[in-house]
C-alpha cells in the first residue's frame, strides 16, 4: 500500500463504467464517470434511486470493481485487486457508516469499535486495540457509554459508535451511506456536525444522501443521474 502524498487524490475515478447482466438485459449502472476527491474534502453524492448512486458508492467503498475505466483509492487501482486485497484495503483505508448503524447486538460499544482492529494484520495496532477504541469513543462524546450495548443506546449514540468504529483504524476516507436516514432531525444535526468537525480536522468524508438539507453540510456536491455525473460543484452556505 502506498502512502498518499499531498497531491494524491483519496478517490480518483476515470471513465468509470459498470454494467450488470440481468438475464438478457444489460443494465448500465454507470456510463463513464470521472472525478477526483482530495484529502480533507467533504463530498455529498446525490441522485434519485436507480441513478447509479449506490453502484458508485460501492465502488468508492472497494466493495465492487468497475467493468471498465478505473477507480483508484490513494492511488491504488481497485480493478486489479483480488477479494482478500480489497478486504485489506477496506480495513486500512476506509471507514463505513451505515443508515442502520450495523452494530453487533449484545456487544459493548467498546467491542463494536474494536471490531475492525481484529481483522487488521498489524500486531501493534491489535495490541493497542482497547486504547484506540476508547480514544475514538471519547472523540465522539461517548466516554461514559463504552460498556453499553446497542440496545441501551439511543439512535444518535449508536450512530456515533458506528462513526468511532469507522475511525478506529485511521482511515483515509469515511464513507457514510444515508447516515441520518434512521435519525430524528435533532440528532441529524448532531451527527452532521460531527462529520463536519472531522473534515475540519482533515478527514475526507463522502456522504451519500437524497436529502438536500443533509447534503448541505458538505462542501461539494456530486449529482448522479442515469449513470452519469450531471453536476459537480462546491456547496456554498449550505444551499443546494
Amino acid at each position, binding site marked *: 500500500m502506498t502512502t498518499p502524498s499531498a497531491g494524491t487524490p483519496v478517490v480518483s475515478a476515470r471513465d468509470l463504467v459498470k454494467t450488470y447482466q440481468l438475464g438478457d438485459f444489460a443494465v448500465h449502472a454507470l456510463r463513464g464517470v470521472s472525478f477526483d476527491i482530495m484529502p480533507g474534502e467533504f463530498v455529498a453524492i446525490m441522485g434519485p434511486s436507480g441513478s447509479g448512486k449506490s453502484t458508485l458508492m*460501492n465502488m468508492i*467503498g472497494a*466493495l*465492487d470493481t468497475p467493468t471498465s475505466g478505473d477507480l483508484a483509492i490513494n492511488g491504488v487501482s481497485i480493478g486489479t485487486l483480488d*477479494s*482478500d486485497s480489497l*478486504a*485489506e484495503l*477496506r*480495513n*486500512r483505508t476506509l471507514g*463505513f457508516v*451505515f443508515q*442502520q448503524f*450495523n452494530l*453487533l*447486538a*449484545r*456487544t459493548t460499544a467498546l467491542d463494536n469499535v474494536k*471490531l*475492525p482492529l*481484529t*481483522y*487488521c494484520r498489524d500486531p501493534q495496532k491489535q495490541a493497542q486495540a482497547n486504547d484506540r477504541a476508547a480514544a475514538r469513543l471519547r472523540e465522539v462524546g461517548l466516554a461514559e457509554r463504552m460498556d453499553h450495548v446497542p440496545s441501551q443506546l439511543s439512535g444518535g449514540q449508536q450512530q456515533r459508535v458506528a462513526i468511532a*468504529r469507522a475511525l478506529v*483504524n485511521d482511515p483515509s476516507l469515511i464513507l457514510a451511506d444515508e447516515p441520518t436516514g434512521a435519525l430524528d432531525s435533532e440528532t441529524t444535526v448532531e451527527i452532521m456536525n460531527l462529520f463536519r468537525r472531522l473534515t475540519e480536522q482533515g478527514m475526507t468524508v463522502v456522504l451519500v444522501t437524497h436529502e438536500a438539507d443533509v447534503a448541505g453540510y458538505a462542501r461539494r456536491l456530486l449529482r448522479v443521474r442515469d449513470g452519469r455525473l450531471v453536476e459537480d460543484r462546491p456547496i456554498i452556505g449550505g444551499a443546494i
Partner: protein
Amino acid sequence: MNVLEFLKTALVALRLNLMRSVLTTLGIIIGVGSVIVMSGIGSGASKQIEDQIASLGTNQLTIFPGAQNVGGRRGGFGSAPPMTEKDVRAIREGVQGVAAVAGNLQGNANLVAGNANWVSRVNGVTDEIEQVRDWPVAEGRFFTADDAAAGQKVAVIGSTVARELFGGADPLGSTIRMNNAPFTVIGVLETKGQAGGQDQDDIVMVPLSTARSRLVGRTNVPDIVGQILVKVEDGYNIDEVQADIEKVLRERRRVQPNAENNFMIRNFAEFLETRSAASRTLGLLLAATAAISLVVGGIGIMNIMLVSVTERTREIGLRMAIGARGGDIMGQFLTEAVLLCLVGGLIGLTLGVGVAFVLAAAFKWVVYISPWAALMAIGASAFVGVVFGFVPARRASQLNPIDALRYE
C-alpha cells in the same frame, strides 16, 4: 483474526442463542453419551471376563483324558486311559519351560463341621498346585509333600467353604468330616472370586494320595491324577510348550502317528483370544452406532449453522465491509460449528460416564471407560464439527458483501 478471537466471537454467538445451541447439539450429546455408556458397559464386561480368565491363569495348561477309538467305535469323553503320576513325571522331566506340574483329582463331597454342612468340590492335589494356580493361602499353611506321603487327612479350604461351615469363627485346626472321614483344616485360601459363572472359592483341597483312598472311591488305576495342570515358565511360548507336552504324551500313551490324541490340552490363552475377538466385534458394532449417531448429530449442526448464516447475513456483510477476508468469515463459522460439537461431545461424555456409573451401581455391573474411548468420542465430535460446519462456513465466506449488507 487469530484463534482466540475466533473462539471469543463463537462463544458470544452461541450464547446469544443458548437454547438453540443446546438443542442443536443434543444430537451430539445423545450420540456421544450413548456410545460412552455402551462401550463402558461392554468393555467393563469383557474386562471382567478377561480378569477372571487371568485369575485362572493365562500361562496355564490343563490336560485331561479325552475320547478314544476302540475298534472303530468312538468312546465318550474320558473314555481314554486316565492321567497318572507317570504322565506328571514325564511332563516334568521331558518338557522344557514347565514351571510346575500338579495332578488334580476332582470329586464332590458332603462337608460337615459341627452343625453346618455344605456340598463342595473336593480337589485332590499335589502340593505344587499352589504354584501352578498361583493361589497362596491367606491363613495357615498349604500341605507339603510329607503330608501327602504320610497320607495325612489335612485340608485347605476356600473362603466360601470357610464362611459356610464356620461363619466368622477361625477354621484353622477345626475338623471337617468329608464323606464321613475327618479332615483337619490347616489353611484357608485367598479369595479369588467368580470365574465363568463359578465360585472359585467354593473349593476344598486335600492331598492327592488321601483323596484317592478316602474320597474318590476305588479305581483300578492306583496312581490316577485326574487332570494335570501345568504352569508354563515365564519367557516360554505357551503354544510351543503345549506342542512339546503333546509330543511327550502321545509317545507315552502310545498314540499311533496318524491317530487323534486320546487326551485334551486346554489353553486359557486361547479362551482369551476368542474373548477379545468377540469384544472386537462388539467394538466394531459400537463404532458403527457411534458413527451413525454422530452423522445424525452432524446433520443437525449443519442445518442450524445454515440457518445461522442466513440470519446473520448482515453481520457477515458488515464484517466484510470493515475488512474481514473470506477466510476470516470461514474460520469464524467453522469455529462455531466445532465448538458446538466439542461442547456437545464433552457434555455427552460427562453424561455418559454418569449414567454408566449409575447403571453400574444399580445393577452391580462392572463398567470400564477407557481414556482412549473418551478421547475418541471428543475427537470424533470435533471432526463432525469440521465436516458439517464446512458447507455453511463456506457459504458465509462466499457471500457478496454488497448483497449481504442490503439483506433484510
